[in-house]
């Protein structure tokens, strides 16, 4: 099953490589990964998505918890949560295509953030499926470049991941 694991860890050199190393070392999957400092600069928040059986996920969370720099972690998929990914996508846009792409962007509630006479650069946020759907909707022919941030997530309601 696909899981989103969100980790608070010490914002120290080497901490990220320990997390990434663990996945290859123990033969776990890692599908996406995002990381950035939090409002407390001594802490980083790392969100990763992985796929595995319940047993494997249990081991992943236990092994992550064992890393000295990992302060706290939560499996967001255990409860209600919000999942977002940011995509920047560069599309070939000329002639009649321009209006069609603009309409599609509006439907997906995206924004055109950069324009040339032949190219639109579109910004889109949503869960992974929505981003996939957009790419499908604009057709792969016109896609010049895709950048996806990987998944970020947060629990719904009053539950927080903090110290």
């Amino acid at each position: 099953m696909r899981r989103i694991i969100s980790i608070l860890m010490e914002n120290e050199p080497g901490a990220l490589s320990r997390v990434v190393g663990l996945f290859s070392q123990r033969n776990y999957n890692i599908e996406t990964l995002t990381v950035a400092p939090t409002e407390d600069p001594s802490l980083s928040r790392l969100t990763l998505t992985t796929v595995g059986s319940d047993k494997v996920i249990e081991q992943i969370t236990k092994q992550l918890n064992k890393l000295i720099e990992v302060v706290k972690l939560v499996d967001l998929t255990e409860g209600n949560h919000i999942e977002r990914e940011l995509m920047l996508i560069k599309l070939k846009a000329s002639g009649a295509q321009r209006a069609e792409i603009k309409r599609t962007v509006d439907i997906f509630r995206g924004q055109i953030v950069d324009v040339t006479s032949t190219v639109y650069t579109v910004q889109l946020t949503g869960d992974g499926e929505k981003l996939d759907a957009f790419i499908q909707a604009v057709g792969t022919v016109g896609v010049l470049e895709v950048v996806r941030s990987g998944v970020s997530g947060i629990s719904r309601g009053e539950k927080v991941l903090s110290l």
Partner: protein
Amino acid sequence: MELLSGGDMLVRALKDEGVEYIYGYPGGAALHIYDALFRQDDVKHLLVRHEQAATHMADGYARATGEPGVVLVTSGPGATNTITGIATASMDSIPMVVLCGQVVSSLIGEDAFQETDMIGVSRPIVKHNMTVRHPSEIPTLVKKAFYLAKTGRPGPVVLDIPKDMTAPNEHYEYHYPDKVSLRSYNPAMRGHAGQIKKAVDMLLAARRPMIYAGGGVILGRASKELTDLAHELGYPVTNTIMGLGGFPATDPQSLGWLGMHGSYESNMAMHHSDLILAVGARFDDRVTNATDKFCPGARIIHIDIDPASISKTVQADVPIVGPVHSVLSEMLSLVRESSASPDQEALDAWWKQIREWGKYRPRYYYEKNDDHIMPQEVIEALYKVTNGDAYVTSDVGQHQMFAAQYYPFDKPNRWINSGGLGTMGFGFPAAMGVKLHFPDEEVVCVTGEGSIQMNIQELSTCKQYDLPVKIVNLNNQALGMVKQWQDMNYEARHAHSYMDSLPDFVKLMEAYGHVGIKVTKREELMPALEKAFAMKDKLVFLDIYVDPFEHVYPMQVARGSMKDMWLSKTERV
């Protein structure tokens, strides 16, 4: 407050941590530290002949005493040579602190002379590793390294020290902290009371119980608690090969060890039990055999300091995370207070069954022949000569299994072997580390002519520091365990498992200033051992020629259950 250079701070911090001996090898990036060592007498340094041996020496010391062993090496090759030793310690959860020199910070990343990314290289095999980024951090980082190495589930910690951090001309305030706390690291101090209660209820209700105790009992200094609980309950105990001595092997409740080469009754009792109390053991593949066939009727209580060890390979029914000694003593109190008691009738029937299985011993006990000394009889003779009270280290292979099978350990910390990583070359330097700290104890390395040659250069270190360990070389002129597998699984095609051109070990010992004795006949065996152990001040190497065809039995059948075993070359049960 005192002002000290980084190098002096490092050495002083070791002293303040209570470190008496460190093992190492100097080199460019570590020279400021070595100079600091030279200018004091509190921390003594032993110069090895290869850095790997330094780690095994530190490891042997740690296994015998429970205290972290300390290693000091230079950058690059000095650091990478410690990797096998660090991995060995890591797999067996041995507390160790490895101090590695590093090139000056301004050169890091430039492929400087003797530069290696030791933090990156060691990452998967350490409990933690850290780089010194400012000399003033040294006392705190040393404290942290020791704290991490020895608390919770112990393990090796690497401290990477760029040369400029120990420069003699810069001085900083030295203060060694009493303790460190880490917000991200809080090992369990007690087990969950509710879980312990539940476990005790299950224990008392069991009809065919087994206590399966691992190295965690020794690391967690819980032998007494384990023994008391087992005696209170009257339940059978089996140890892992890492846990030997955690429960006295000559106690009537001991079934010997379990797993691939464990005793028949241990493996049978595990397979047929209805409740397993696993204590500081990790259900390693060499214990469980095929996990899908593992102990089908047993519910499992698993006590471990490391939550990740629980339900990793075999699902636990009652997990208890905590230090084994406190969990076991809480269990003992509850058992004593409880109005319930074990069903004596069921327990008697269970013991009767176990004693029946015990009668299989002669079927896998070795047979003597006229042509050769048997490796097992060497171990039996060794047991006699040392009154069963020596510190025995081993290398890896058949001799390791024979030593574990035929030298029953009644005390913890006496059996020292690389059970997890299986590192050939471990035993001799480990024995040196033990001997250094227990000069009045008998310290024996049981080895083979394959393993001993993987760290034989340390004979020179033994001469320099007067470390009169005894080496029992079970010489079968082959890599015995490899050959056994080839006999059993590859139609006896002995691909590179032979040992041609062995050195004359007796002459080799003489060259290093030690004593070598070659033994080829049965009648020479006891006198040679007695002679060797009578030479208290000498390193004696007994080169004992043994039967080259012998196999280790029992041996579990690959991909079978606990109860599927070969008892001899021809008998499979």
